[in-house]
């Protein structure tokens, strides 16, 4: 048998194949390292799909201060004008996932809710209501009492809608980040002109952070999604956040970071006095800004990566910061290294 190679042979020897494979892997790894090192936020415009947005940051060291003026200033900076709000119905969606008496770091503070109601009425809204489908508990009224919100709603005669038991309508899940074919939503959402996510600034042990986009889990009625909203957990939290936001199309976010939660959020973490409010029309931009303030890399938050470009920008270069700068208010939120969703999300400063 002649083992001499023919000068016109085709194909590779095993040695050549292994060599080329190793070289290709090395080039790939080097490229990945370079991308992470020099382009941590992806390609710059015009090579990325993100449409720019604006986010307003204001310092608010305590709840017992003139929050109304701060929110009105934010709305003005974001060019939310009386002409845009006059005659409109506004739904404010606070985070009331669960409560514990005296634990003000779990839920959106009632004084932030009050200030937001007053701000929209000041701009000429015809009706402002507060609505929530409490995530973990069946007694919504007790949650309102324990959060302190019941007192504010009663004093100011602000209507509250329990979205867990609302009548519903079903829409196709057009965005399709999960396998869910449809989404079942409360009728109340159709009866308002604006939906405002009035969220809390918290770390989250499944999603990394919970801010304005995750807060919209609460619009999904418990009667059809359960307590907790387990269908969404099985479908994937990240994809569900994006699908819900794409379907609900909220107009604005206001994040209560006056006292947020760090560590084992969204329930068991510890209070974090970040002393600020963050607002914006683009929820991905607001959440990305909040994450940077918390010293968390928004690119490492899976739901923000899914939303980027499709629902709004998350790259710092595509978000124009109004009011305070991120650097001026940065306040690192503690992460827990044993929680997988917290691993590797710290922003390198």
């Amino acid at each position: 048998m002649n083992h001499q190679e023919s000068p016109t042979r085709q194909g590779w020897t095993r040695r050549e194949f292994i060599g080329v494979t190793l070289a290709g892997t090395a080039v790939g790894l080097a490229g990945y390292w370079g991308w992470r090192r020099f382009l941590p936020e992806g390609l710059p415009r015009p090579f990325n799909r993100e449409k720019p947005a604006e986010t307003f940051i204001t310092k608010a060291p305590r709840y017992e201060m003139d929050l109304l003026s701060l929110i009105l200033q934010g709305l003005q900076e974001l060019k939310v004008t009386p002409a845009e709000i006059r005659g409109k119905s506004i739904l404010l969606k606070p985070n009331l996932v669960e409560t514990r008496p005296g634990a003000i770091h779990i839920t959106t503070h009632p004084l932030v809710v009050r200030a937001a109601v007053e701000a929209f009425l000041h701009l000429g809204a015809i009706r402002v209501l507060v609505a929530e489908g409490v995530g973990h508990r069946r007694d919504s009224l007790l949650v309102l009492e324990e959060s302190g919100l019941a007192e504010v709603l009663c004093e100011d005669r602000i209507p509250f809608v329990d979205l867990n038991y609302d009548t519903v309508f079903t829409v196709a899940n057009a965005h399709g980040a999960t396998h869910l074919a449809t989404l079942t939503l409360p009728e109340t959402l159709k009866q308002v002109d604006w939906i405002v996510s009035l969220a809390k600034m918290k770390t989250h042990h499944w999603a990394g952070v919970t801010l304005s986009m995750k807060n919209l889990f609460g619009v999904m009625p418990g009667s059809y999604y359960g307590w907790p909203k387990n269908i969404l957990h099985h479908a994937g939290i990240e994809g569900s956040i994006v699908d819900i936001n794409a379907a609900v199309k909220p107009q604005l976010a206001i994040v209560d970071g006056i006292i947020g939660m760090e560590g084992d959020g969204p329930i068991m973490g510890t209070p974090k006095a970040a002393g600020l409010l963050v607002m914006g029309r683009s929820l991905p931009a607001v959440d990305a800004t909040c994450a940077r303030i918390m010293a968390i890399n928004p690119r490492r938050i899976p739901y923000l990566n899914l939303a980027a470009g499709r629902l709004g920008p998350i790259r710092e270069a595509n978000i124009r910061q109004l009011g305070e700068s991120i650097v001026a208010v940065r306040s690192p939120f503690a992460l827990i290294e044993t929680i997988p969703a917290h691993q590797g999300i710290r922003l390198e400063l």
Partner: protein
Amino acid sequence: MQDQFVSAYLETIRRRVCSPEGGFAGQEGGGYRADATAWAAVALEAAGQRLDWLTAARARLKAQQLADGRVILTPQHPDAVWLTPLAVLAWHRARDYRDATDKAARFMLATTGRHWPRTPDLPYEHDPSLKGWPWITATHSWVEPTALAVLALRISGRGEHERVKEGVRLLLDRQLPGGGWNYGNTKVFGRELFPFPESTGAALNALKGAAEPARVRKSLDYLHSRLREVRTPVALSWGLMGLAAWGEGPAEAGAWIKECLANQERYGPYDTASLSLLLVASRAPRGLESVFAIGGKS
């Protein structure tokens, strides 16, 4: 107080009857609500008010039963099956609904939540392999739907079924180490979560006669302490029934219910399900099951 409460209750829900289909709305002028209808049926029976409304409410629930026995909220949402045990409670004392009850029970016995083996790397501490009942099919089993299914199967004569026994084991497994239950997680990432009175009350009703008192002592203590501050209808009703089921109903129960009713001046009229639950609690001297032991069949 009892007679006054019943009179006021009847006057309130009279304005919430859905005509001509039967059943009740959550509030006056609102749309039909199936869970409210089920609780109103239980409350009317508990108060001995065998009115046409009760007959119509049971029939409306029957119309929502599918061929496999599940009772659903709307035809568009056949996966939302948590109404099924409530319908069994609503039908329990009516002879005409034995077949419907049997079908519902067969469905419950054939249905479980999603389960998987317990492994050391799980971030939560409860045993996910124990089979109970979910709110919505193809999701995990949680405390309240499991408690309601155990109660419904037990009052319909299936208390010795293996599924009921496993449901009891699940509830004991989900009891918080410090006492009480929440929606159904005990510890996540090593941190013990907090109890809720409404979940605790439901679990204690389901465990009546199925667990040693020592196993639930901390949970009873939690309710004794927590209910002193709770005056909202769902948590107070379930909490009081939870204590009553174990023969520890507080002497102040009537006064607390009265205070809770008075809070409607502040909050507006309670929805039909909450108000009905409160009436049931006021008529449940030994827990939820005791309301089904009073009087004869209708």
